[in-house]
């Protein structure tokens, strides 16, 4: 079997050219796909360095220029002195209730101050390398969690410029990688799921299909023999009369069709089967359910992964994954939040992990959309053909 196949291929192209072709394909692949992955990665890393530098530099500059802005209001100290004053002036310890009420008021103010400070957030400490990396990734993927945002003016301007250049780059990455992934997924699907990888099964399947077709053709022929009213279907074109010309031409048409089916059915030599096996790989479309299954599987896998990493429950994990992969990005759940103070290294690792998950996930989603589009177009074309055939039947 293998010798026959190789001889078949050798007949098509000489070895040297084949080698050259492979080389060319390989270089093209390296330049287009690996190149764009590297480009996106380097762009993100470069962005991370730039943002980190800008934010820290601007922070330092502002701090040296206008130090009064950066003096931390000693909120707890203020609160303490106020309570002390309150206690000192209210010497009578017998009025427990009044004292409690006034202390409560002071505490409420204190709490408000804390809330404001916490919401206004953060400082330069967030702009670690991995934080900046995740930030620039969320800019170009248009997720935009918003857990880290630039506070300086130059940082904002740089973000706008970075987004304008980065987003088309990322779209290019998506379409390219989506294409490649779709092609390889299709190949795997056709090889593994339809058992094309072992030639025996495929051959048997094709032979089975041929047998079915042969039965069908025979049944069709029988049908024509009966309904043709004596005139044999092979010679019907010569024995037509003017009165039922339309119907007879119809018969001839169908008989031609059936004869062609018969031809196909009976000409089942081995080389034909070989060619069909190899040729049909391109025509296979992956069904919709498989695509949806892949997407749901990826999201659930992410939920599992992040659930283990971040101590989220499964609902939170899958919610986070869907919100991120659909590029909504609320930012209420962000990886690395839990351990922000506990362990610095772990935060870094979890940011990088999240970035890789997102990059891969976006490509997988693009792949699924690619495949689904193909499938839907294929289906619609089939439906159109069916409609057309239906109308032709009625009109004739």
């Amino acid at each position: 079997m293998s010798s026959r196949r190789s001889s078949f291929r050798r007949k098509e192209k000489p070895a040297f050219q084949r080698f050259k072709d492979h080389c060319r394909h390989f270089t093209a692949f390296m330049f287009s796909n690996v190149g764009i992955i590297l480009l996106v990665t380097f762009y993100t890393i470069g962005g991370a360095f730039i943002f980190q530098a800008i934010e820290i530099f601007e922070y330092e500059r502002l701090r040296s220029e206008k130090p009064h802005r950066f003096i931390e209001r000693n909120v707890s100290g203020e609160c303490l002195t106020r309570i002390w004053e309150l206690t000192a002036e209210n010497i009578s310890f017998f009025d427990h209730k009044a004292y409690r009420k006034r202390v409560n008021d002071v505490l409420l103010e204190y709490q408000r101050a804390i809330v404001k400070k916490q919401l206004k957030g953060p400082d330069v400490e967030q702009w670690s390398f991995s934080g900046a990396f995740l930030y620039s990734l969320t800019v170009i993927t248009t997720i935009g969690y918003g857990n880290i945002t630039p506070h300086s003016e130059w940082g904002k301007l740089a973000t706008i410029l970075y987004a304008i250049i980065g987003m088309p780059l990322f779209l290019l990455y998506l379409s390219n990688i989506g294409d490649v992934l779709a092609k390889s997924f299709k190949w795997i699907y056709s090889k593994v799921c339809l058992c094309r990888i072992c030639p025996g099964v495929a051959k048997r399947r094709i032979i089975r299909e041929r047998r079915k077709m042969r039965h069908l053709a025979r049944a069709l022929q029988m049908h024509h023999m009966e309904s043709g009213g004596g005139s044999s279907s092979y010679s019907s074109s010569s024995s037509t009369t003017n009165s039922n010309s339309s119907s007879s031409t119809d018969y001839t048409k169908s008989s031609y069709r059936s004869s062609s089916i018969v031809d196909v059915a009976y000409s089942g030599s081995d080389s034909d089967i070989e060619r069909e096996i190899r040729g049909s790989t391109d025509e296979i479309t992956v069904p919709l359910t498989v695509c949806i299954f892949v997407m749901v599987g990826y999201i659930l896998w992410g939920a599992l992964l992040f659930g283990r990493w971040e101590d989220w429950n499964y609902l939170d994990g899958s919610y986070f994954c869907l919100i991120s992969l659909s590029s909504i990005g609320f930012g209420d759940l962000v990886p690395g939040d839990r351990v922000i103070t506990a362990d610095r290294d772990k935060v870094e690792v979890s940011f990088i992990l999240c970035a890789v998950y997102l990059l891969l996930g976006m490509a997988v989603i693009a792949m699924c959309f690619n495949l689904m589009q193909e499938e839907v177009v294929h289906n619609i074309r089939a439906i159109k053909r069916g409609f057309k055939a239906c109308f032709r039947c009625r009109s004739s």
Partner: protein
Amino acid sequence: MPSKFQRRSSPQAPGGLGVGASSVSSTPSNQPRKRVKRCCRNFVTFMCTQVGVGALIVLYAICGAFAFMNIEREYVDKTAAHVLELRQNCSQLLWYITEEHNLIDKRMWVNETNAVLREYQAQIAGIIKNGYVGRSPEQIWSFPAALMFCLSVITMIGYGNMVPRTPWGKGFTVIYATFGIPLYILYFLNMGRVLARSFKFLYRSMHDCTQERNFDTRLDALENGSLGALTLRKKIIVPSTACLWVIIFYVLTGTIMFANWEKWSFLNSFYFCMTSLCKIGFGDFVPGASLTTAADVDAATHKLQEDIAADPNELSELQSIADQHSKLAINFVYMLLGMGLVAMCRNLMREEVHVKLKEMKEDAKLCVEDTRLRFVGCCGDPRDVYENDYY
């Protein structure tokens, strides 16, 4: 409409007069009827596709807003009660400390009180990290805010200033996004196509106008002037600079608008517009955030009546802000239209890039051919080269 009916009935009325008469009267009547029919069909398809999709988006957003309001207001905010309890505890502790040390030993008192306050601060910080912003769900999930939330979900902007807290809300968000995003993409593509077509038409007519003025004198002289104009008209492609001008103008409008309303600086406002239209949506600036709701005003008045110490200025500020609900609606429209404009530019620019790429490819091909010819000329032995090139 009545004329249509009349024409339809007129061939029936004579009836038996003859086949010829009816056929004669029906052939001219068919023409306008067909036209009307075609017009109607076009109108219906337009309504169904463009306006229908737009209306569908708005309806979907409104339905989602109501659903989210209902779901999220059910959320029993345990954190508020928890915070209250913490505060009571803290004051109780302070009381105990004061009772114990009796103001005599100030250093001891300060030390202990400081420890209590520290602990309180740490607890509050933890609660804030989990999403406590000091407002009740009724205050957060007002109708316009919920509408903005729905829009931010289906347009994939995702500001994240307000997020669902209940598990039901989270699940519903997931479902809402899976159905809403394809719908939005449909709107995006449709809107992009329609706007691109109309913009192209506008541009073309303007281009024609200016061109005619220039060519008017020459057109008479040239015999095949009309042919030239025709070919010219076919090849007009809207240059990408025009699209960019439109987008820049739109963004600048938004910048000025938001800067005036929200009292942001121009850079911040510009930054907000860009990050929103690019669908990044950090959520550090959100237009609805400073708009408070009627519930807020109610709470403020309530507090004012209860507590004399509360700030009356705050209330007036709140009331003046609460009038701004219409601004939120305008914001909604601004976002939707802006997305449509972005789609339009994407459409137009893709066309131009295609044309440019094709030209570039042809140029490159010519260049390669040229160098090959030159190479062949230099190195002689054309057969060898030819063979190499053939492979």
